């Protein structure tokens, strides 16, 4: 019944596929209520169409008065690199707590070696078998990304205040120059970000890292 209401709406506004429309027309042939609704609503739509908007008044915006040009550009330029530094620091802290060793090589990128058990190996003792993890590499990467985004957001808020003060000081200076500077900075940082993200895409011990995030999704972030 109300299912027909929904279909009727889609039929009235031509959002049904040809096949669905045909099936609804079959129903229409046997249902007087839908027939009446359809006829009424078609008349109603004609009535509604009478209310057209003839002319749009001129919309003028005074944007210059707001904290605009340099400020926005500058704001976007700044945080990326610093955010990443903070994210990396937080990641190291978390990893340290879980017996993870992380190293960074300019050529090889980030490297993780991790285990949920103490590293001290007892000679002759059977090695604990790694627990199977049901996470794919994509899921791990997604988890890392989420963590980074969250850190970025927090850092943003702290920085906003500082940047506002800085922007106030700079506002009187040449804005175009400011924007140029900001854009160059930002481009560099975005390249750097892409590079780092690539590296994050290939952690060497995916499964253990996955477990870390899985078991303690909130630690440090």
């Amino acid at each position: 019944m109300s299912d027909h209401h929904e279909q009727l709406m889609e039929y009235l506004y031509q959002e049904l596929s040809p096949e669905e429309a045909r099936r609804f027309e079959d129903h229409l042939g046997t249902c007087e209520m839908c027939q009446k609704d359809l006829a009424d609503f078609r008349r109603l739509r004609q009535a509604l169409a009478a209310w057209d908007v003839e002319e749009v008044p001129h919309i003028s915006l005074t944007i210059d008065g707001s904290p605009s040009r340099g400020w926005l550009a500058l704001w976007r330029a700044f945080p990326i690199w610093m955010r990443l530094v903070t994210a990396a620091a937080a990641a190291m802290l978390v990893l340290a707590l879980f017996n993870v060793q992380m190293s960074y090589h300019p050529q090889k990128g980030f490297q993780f070696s991790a285990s949920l058990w103490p590293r001290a190996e007892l000679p002759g003792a059977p090695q604990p078998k790694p627990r199977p993890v049901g996470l794919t590499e994509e899921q791990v990467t997604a988890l890392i990304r989420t963590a980074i985004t969250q850190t970025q957001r927090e850092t943003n808020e702290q920085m906003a205040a500082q940047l506002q003060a800085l922007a106030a000081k700079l506002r009187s200076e040449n804005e175009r120059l400011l924007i140029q500077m900001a854009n160059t900075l930002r481009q560099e940082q975005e390249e750097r970000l892409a590079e780092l993200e690539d590296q994050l895409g290939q952690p060497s011990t995916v499964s253990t890292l996955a477990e870390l995030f899985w078991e303690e999704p909130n630690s440090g972030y």
Partner: protein
Amino acid sequence: MEWTDEQIVQRTLNGEVEAFGILVRRWEKKVYGLAYRMLGHYEDARDTTQEIFLTVYRNLRKFRGDAKFSSWLYRIALNCCHNRLRERALQTVPLDESPPVPVDASAHSQVERQQKIERVRRALRALPYEMRQVIIMKEYEGLTFKEIAEILNIPVSTAKTRLYTGLDQLRERLLAVKDAL
């Protein structure tokens, strides 16, 4: 090729503030149409349209690009309209602002037309807010049910049933009068 809305947002954020003007020109008619029909009042609609674009501009960096720009814009637009209606309700300023009716007797059809518009305007205004917005978005803005659902953050089926209920109520108000159409 034409810039997409999202590209223009990016350009604006990159410091090319003039680019925002393209967005305003592209959307002002739709946004004004929405505001006018939601508020039923010319001056309110004009002021609110300005407010909408300013709000969009000031919050541009919050636009994450996970939804379409237009959905985000409509969401802001509806919010601004809602606020304006609330202010209006507090001020108890009568919303009745009849459009100028030509006195010239030869413009008889024009008078008739104005009367028709007035009837629609009143009927829509009498509807509950939730239904009115869906009818306006569907009928006048030509949005799909999926788009409406995204803007209002409701299930698509809810968008459809709201429209049905709205039209059903409107039918009582508009079609009850014989020859009103």
